[in-house]
Structure formats: C-alpha cells, structure tokens
C-alpha cells in the first residue's frame, strides 16, 4: 500500500433517532491518491458511513456514538460539514441532489461558495469542470431539474470538484444511469485520481464497475466491514462473486472473514 492514510475511520458506531443502530464498529481507511470502494447490500450502512465522514448525520437526527474519524491525522468529529469542505472532504450525495431550480452553471458555482472565487479564478475552475464533462457545456443555462439523470450526476460531481477537494465521497454514483454513462463517469473518476491525485471513497451496488475502478475495497454488512483487501483480490474471491456479481443466487448471506 502506498500513500499515507488520508482518512481513517476508527471503530465508529452510529445511531439514528436515538434508536436505530446503523453502524456497529466500522473501521476503514483511505490512503492519499487512492480510490476505495465500499460494497454491501441494501441497508448495510454504506451511506451512513459516508455521511458520518462528511458529518451530515445531524440533519437526519443521527449521531456518531462511538469511535472517531481522522482526516490527515486530525479528529474531525467536531467539525461541521462546511469546515470539512474547506479542509478538502466533500460528498456527492446519493440520488445526485442537484439544486433543481438553479441552472447547471449556478449549481457548479455553488460548489465554490466556500472558496470565495470570483472573476477569472472562478471562470477557470468552471472551465476545468467543463473540460471533464463536455456534455454539460450546452446545458449550462438550463435548470438542473430538467437535465437527464446522467447529466445530473455529472453536475453533482462537477459541483464537488469546484470545492477543490482532496477526498470525494461518492454515494452510488452509478445508480439509475445508463451503462455508457456509468462507464463515462467512472472513467472520469479514474482520471481525477490519476491526474489530480484526488482520493475517492465510493459506495456502490454495482460491484463489477466499482471494483474495476478501485484500488481497495471494503465489504460492509450489518454496519461493519466484514472483508477488505485490494480491489482485484476482492473481485476474484468466489464468495464475493457469488453475492455481488449475481452469477448465482445464494441463500447463504454471511461472510466468514
């Protein structure tokens, strides 16, 4: 493993509404310049893990009740989301969540609010995003609510890039997208990692694509990481193939890590 650990999640427990235990001692880490993917069935806790990292739980009445999260060695548990964005951690939410009433370009600019860009600096930041996602250029003046699902996903990722993050957490970026677009988006994520050294933490259901584009993978079940290892190794494991590539339906749903 190369690179220093950028993000470390240590044994965290998350409770929603003081009643629902969603994570039960999850640990993971992301090294600088690496792409890490979280796999797991529905409700395993992937989204919760990402929200814990970017401190978005409070809006859903959730709380980290145990453990800690370190970014560059610093405990970020007490920072709020905006501080984290400034520190370089940003999340692309599940279901894209563009601002539907803002235009595509305004959506992108909103990602740079924390950086107080203006004039030329803002222009060049926008151009960088349009370079990555040329498809957005003709739509820049359109309300994001009216663009297609794939375009919205691009807007959401582009918006995150505007904050100049060092770690992007993406929650199911492939959901509901056409195969071509999924390929396109993962290719761009790949590029971001390689060319800009941005670290990625991607929660996915689409194990085949996710593993193909990741360096390292965790499999989460019942709020815990039950398996982890280099993506290629994980992809090769027969039990994983059984469960996450869908070659066979299996009654047996637990791992013995």
């Amino acid at each position: 493993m190369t690179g220093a650990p950028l993000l470390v999640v240590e044994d965290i427990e998350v409770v929603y509404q003081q009643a629902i235990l969603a994570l039960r001692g999850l640990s993971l880490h992301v090294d600088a310049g690496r792409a890490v993917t979280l796999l797991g069935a529905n409700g395993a806790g992937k989204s919760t893990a990402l929200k814990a990292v970017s401190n978005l739980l409070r809006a859903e009445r959730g709380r980290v009740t145990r453990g800690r999260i370190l970014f560059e060695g610093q405990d970020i548990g007490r920072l709020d989301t905006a501080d984290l964005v400034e520190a370089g951690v940003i999340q692309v939410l599940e279901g894209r969540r563009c601002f539907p009433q803002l235009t595509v370009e305004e959506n992108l600019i909103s990602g740079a609010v924390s950086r107080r860009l203006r004039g030329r600096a803002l222009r060049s930041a926008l151009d960088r995003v349009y370079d990555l996602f040329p498809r957005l250029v003709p739509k820049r003046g359109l309300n994001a609510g009216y663009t297609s699902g794939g375009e919205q996903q691009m807007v959401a990722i582009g918006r995150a890039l505007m904050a100049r993050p060092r770690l992007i957490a993406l929650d199911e970026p492939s959901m509901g997208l056409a195969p071509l677009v999924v390929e396109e988006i993962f290719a761009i994520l790949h590029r971001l990692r390689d060319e800009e050294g941005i670290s990625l933490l991607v929660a996915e259901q689409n194990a085949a694509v996710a593993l193909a584009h990741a360096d390292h993978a965790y499999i989460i079940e019942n709020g815990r990481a039950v398996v982890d290892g280099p993506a290629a190794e994980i992809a090769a494991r027969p039990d994983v193939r059984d469960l996450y590539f869908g070659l066979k339906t299996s009654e047996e749903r637990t791992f013995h890590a």
Partner: protein
Amino acid sequence: MDFLLEVLVGGLLSGVMYSLVAIGFVLIYKTSGVLNFAQGAQLLFAALTFVSLVERGLPFVAALAVTLAAMVVIGLAIERLVLRPLVNQPPITLFMATLGLSYVIEGAAQLLWGAQVHGLDLGIDDSPIEAAGIFISQFDLFAAAVAGVMVAALVIFFRKTRTGLAFRAVADDQVAALSVGIRLPRVWAAVWIAAGVVALVAGLLWGARLGVQFSLSLVVLKALPVLVLGGFDSIAGAIVGGLLIGAAEKLAEVYLGPYVGGGIEGWFAYVAALAFLLIRPSGLFGQKLVERV
C-alpha cells in the same frame, strides 16, 4: 372616471404597503421553505422598540441603530434556538414553531414596552397632493419608493451575488447545500436578520400609518394574499402581487361592495388570489416546482 382613477391609484399605493410586509415573508420562505408567521410580531417589536426609545429621548438615528441591533440579535437567536434544532423538519412543524415564536416576541415586546399605543411621526408629510384632479398621499409615495428600493436591492442581491446564490441553493435543497459546504446556520441567520430589517422598515412605515400598537401584528393578514398571488418565493412577485391585490381590493370594495353590503375587503383579496391560483398554482412569479415521477 376621475373617481375610478383615484380608487385605482389609492389601491395601488395601499398595495405597496402590503408588499412591504410580504417581502419579509418571501425572504424567509425562499431560503427555508417556512411561512414565517412571526413576521407580524417582529414588525410590532421593531416599531415598538423604536418608538419607545424615541419617546424616552433618544435621537432618531440612535433609536434606529439600537432597534437595528435588536433585530440582529433576534435574528441570530432565532437561528440558533429555533431553526438549527429543527433542521430538516417538515414545513408545517417550522410554521408552528414560528407561531410559537410570535408569542414569545409579542410577549417580550409588551413586557418591555408596555401595552400603550403610540403615535409615530417619521417627519413625512401625509397631506395629500393633488395631481390631475386626484389626491395622492405623499406618505404613500414615499412608502412606494422605499418598497421599490428594497425590492430592487434584494433582487440584485439574489440574482447577482455569490451569497445570493448560496441562499437560493439552500432554498432548493438544504442537505445538498450542506454537503457542498454552504454554512446553513450562517445563511439562516443572515436571512432572519434581513427579514428583521425588512420588518423594521415595514414596522416604521405601517406604524406611522396606524400608530404603533398591538394591531400592527395584524397587517400580515394583508400580506398573505399578496404572497399567494405573487408566489411565496418571488420578491418581484411580492411587489406586483401587492399592487394587484391593493387595486383589486379597493375597486371591489367601492364598486362591488355596495351590492353585497360592503366590508368585503377582508376576504375579497383572498378569494381573488385564490381564483387566480386556480389558473396558476404557484402564483404569478412563483417557481414551478420541477416535479417528476
């Protein structure tokens, strides 16, 4: 004909006064999706504080400054104590919270300053000027100018500034706004302060018109149909809606009223706004929600 014109002009000018109140609502609704029922109480509080300070001998400007400071403090307190703990709750819960808030503010205003009524003289002459055979109130003209300036400033702010963009983002999707690093508490605090300032302006102008007394908080009832007509989230709508409602209601009272016994102003505006809504469910300028299945 002259009379018709006079009613029309009078209605339009009254309408501007409604807009003044409506703007405060729009600000809050736009950024937090809440119908802030405490707007009336804030208006009362601002006017009462200002007039009480003046009566206690403070110079105009000093009283204005102190009142402004009070509105800022109230805005900050509301954000910290009410909105932040209620983030992501359904709009109706927040609406009720603002009703609770209006109790607190009304109670505090009267506790601080008593229940006496006060006259408020802003030094603007209210004697009518006669133009082309019709009487026009100078005060109303002044109020219209103030409302115009306020609306222009706010529209520019929302459309052209980065903070304005952040405000609109928050209006669209709070969680997404949080996720891109917009500081929700700051936005809300700023908006509530702004609404407090709008309440102060509206409070002073209405206070000069009605006198400063508890009933000031009832002027919100005049603003609600304006909101419906103009769209809850449109500042321009607040002003256009105000003009339309003001004119329609006066014309109706004068020309329709006698046939049904008069006094129809109280509900006519609502019915008119409602009839209009049936054609355009999100008001004149309100944003049509992007709804997809």
